[in-house]
């Protein structure tokens, strides 16, 4: 919470990048306390590591200080408060933390837990579900990562290549 306020208040974008990395690490700790070790692992590696590096790379391309906002902050603040209140209102209906009769634990979860030891034989049920029972989904995710990579490459390096080709055409014209 303190961290998030610091991210909003700080003008130096370098500090903001670092603080958001720290925020990711904190939320990774939160996931560990919720016993979601795989998610915590991903959050620490992606949020704390790669995102921070990419933010720093972006900073190197742009400026390092935030410009002062020109519009009034009240409308965004209002939207955020209403959304937050709606989300908190939604959590009132949620079952207690760790409640075995919660709908999440009644649906397919017990089925996977009962079947995976003798069907898959892999001790980590998360891996068994991700790679085998939900193989289609994971393939879709891989394809999304693939598409994202292609997109960034086209956006960031296509421009430079075209400029170079223009340059070479001009060179040739000059030669001719």
């Amino acid at each position, binding site marked *: 919470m303190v961290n998030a306020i610091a991210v909003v208040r700080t003008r130096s974008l*370098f500090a903001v990048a670092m603080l958001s990395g720290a925020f990711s690490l904190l939320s990774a700790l939160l996931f560990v306390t919720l016993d979601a*070790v*795989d998610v*915590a*692992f*991903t959050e620490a*590696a*992606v949020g704390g*590591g*790669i995102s921070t*590096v*990419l933010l720093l*790379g*972006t900073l*190197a*391309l742009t400026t390092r200080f935030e410009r002062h906002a020109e519009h009034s902050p009240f409308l965004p603040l209002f939207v955020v408060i209403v959304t937050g209140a709606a989300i908190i209102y939604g959590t009132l209906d949620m079952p207690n933390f760790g409640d075995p009769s919660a709908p999440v634990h009644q649906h397919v979860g017990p089925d996977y837990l009962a079947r995976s030891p*003798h*069907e*898959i*034989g*892999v*001790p*980590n049920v*998360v*891996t*068994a579900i*991700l*790679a*085998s029972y939900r*193989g*289609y989904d*994971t*393939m879709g*995710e*891989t*394809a999304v*990562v*693939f598409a*994202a*990579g*292609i997109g*960034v*490459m086209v*956006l*960031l*390096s296509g421009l*430079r290549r075209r400029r170079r080709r223009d340059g070479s055409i001009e060179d040739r014209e000059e030669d001719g």
Partner: protein
Amino acid sequence: MRHHLILRVITKLLVGMIMLFALYVQFHGDYSPGGGFQAGVIMAVAFILYGLVFSVGQVQQVFPPWLVHKLVALGVLIYAGTGVYSMLTGYAFLDYGALSPDHPEHGQHWGILLVEAGVGITVTAVMVSIHYAFVGRTPMISDEEW
């Protein structure tokens, strides 16, 4: 870039360990937290760290951009190829029992291993190529500016 002696020495020590840890996360994902996505990111971090501390040119000698771009597609191909193989041998798409018909459980192990390898390769290559794309456009910043 002849300064930052401590950073350079520590980085050289760390890069190998980070890669080993990535391989551990990759191939031990069946038994402990982790898997292709996490391992891919950790492996990419090793290259990115090397590139940050030394230079992009040096890391691109080790891991050239053309190879990275091929690996981006190779991972998805491995994943989809596993599915197509199981289809060709008469099983459902991505039914890993096809990889070892006599012993479906072993087939599942092989399938998960292959698929996770595909995920890991794609994630590593995408992360590294995004980093290359960012760094490739950046003018070198002098240390005084920071």
